[in-house]
């Protein structure tokens, strides 16, 4: 399936040089739209739109803008490669912070907190994700994806079953809808992930390797290089 192959080729954006300026402008526009007062007010009016639409919009804007700094993995500076894990940790901490009901609540009522949320999700969430992600090993990527799915499911379950409101600015019914939505997304991502692992490019490649172990022994650099290309291995750190 071609779309699954494309998903594996996570550095496609920076390699698309001709449309790069346009893509980055799109990131700016996405940020501006999500932060624009009337749109932001609409997005933040319900918990589901706030957590599952506006927050991802800011992160995505950062991911797109990050392409400006990132450049192609193959030509990227070595220092960025060694910093893949710290960059990813920055993104994880930033996202975790804004997942706290307390701060989602505060962003709804306090303009300064809302601005901090927009800027940090984009610059400390999306940009580091864009810089670090393509440099991670496939196993690390898969590990993170699996964790995101399980975390979404656990959070969704919590939101669905928590008897009182976690956010004072949102109704209990919205909290339950958010829980259902998170569980649904976790389910879909889980199925998608399983599809990629079993039937996507990665799965098929592993099947292809079976029985050809001799071809990828260290004394056969050509075979090793082919294997590395197949499994999409990151640049050596």
């Amino acid at each position, binding site marked *: 399936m071609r779309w699954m192959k494309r998903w594996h080729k996570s550095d496609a954006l920076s390699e698309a040089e001709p449309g790069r300026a346009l893509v980055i402008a799109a990131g700016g526009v996405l940020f501006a739209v999500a932060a624009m007062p009337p749109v932001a007010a609409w997005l933040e009016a319900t918990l589901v739109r706030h957590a599952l639409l506006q927050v991802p919009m800011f992160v995505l804007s950062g991911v797109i803008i990050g392409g400006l700094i990132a450049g192609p993995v193959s030509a990227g500076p070595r220092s960025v490669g060694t*910093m893949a894990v*710290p960059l990813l940790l920055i993104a994880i901490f930033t996202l975790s*912070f804004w997942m706290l009901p*307390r701060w989602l609540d505060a962003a709804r009522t306090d303009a300064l907190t809302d601005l901090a949320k927009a800027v940090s999700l984009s610059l400390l969430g999306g940009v580091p994700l864009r810089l670090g992600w393509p440099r991670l090993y496939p196993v690390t990527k898969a590990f993170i994806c699996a964790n995101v799915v399980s975390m979404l499911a656990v959070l969704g379950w919590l939101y669905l079953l928590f008897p009182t409101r976690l*956010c*004072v600015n949102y109704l209990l019914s919205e909290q339950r809808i958010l829980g259902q939505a998170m569980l649904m997304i976790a389910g879909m991502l889980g199925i998608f992930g399983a599809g990629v692992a079993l039937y996507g490019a990665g799965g098929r490649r592993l099947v292809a390797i079976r029985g050809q172990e001799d071809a990828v022994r260290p004394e056969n650099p050509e075979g090793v290089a082919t294997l590395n290309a197949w499994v999409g291995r990151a640049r050596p750190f």
Partner: protein
Amino acid sequence: MRSAFAIVAVLLLGAAALWAGTDGFRAFTAEEARRIAVAEHPRPLPPVMLEDQQGRAFNLRDYRGKVVLLEFVYTRCPDLCAALGTSFERIREHISDSKLQNRVALFSVSFDPGHDGPDELAAYADRFGGPDAGWRFARPRDERELQALLEVCGVVVKPDGIGGYQHNAAIHMIDSNGNLVRILDYDAVDETLAQVRRLI
């Protein structure tokens, strides 16, 4: 090596940010945060003119020198307010049997003054054994004063879309100087009484 240093630095900074953002991993919700904030930094209540279940006007400031327990309700509330009222009923029983009598005042303040007039407040009071000198049911006279009071207490009231409200329910404790010193769970009767005894 540089990567390891960077990882440690990010872990430390990230943990510090989460620590600061949760008051030391104690407050993950706005409700927990307001309770900690009030306990650590008591805040003066703004002046509020109230009207009780008999239409008599008074100011919370008139109660300086007493410990005041405040709950925010609306009389049509089907659940939380009734639970709060039951807690106040139990607190009143304990107080009237002890040395705390005349030193503690209870107030049920409506955040829905448009609907809750003296008649509604009186009917509501009857559900909890009726008002007396120690427990008054009241509504703010001025909408701005009400908002200022809710703001200081950290109470957020949201219309629920079916004619009622969703709100955070708690027992607000005001010391004899008129400062909000503690916010307690709506069913924490024993803890409230213990705190009251500590203040007096």
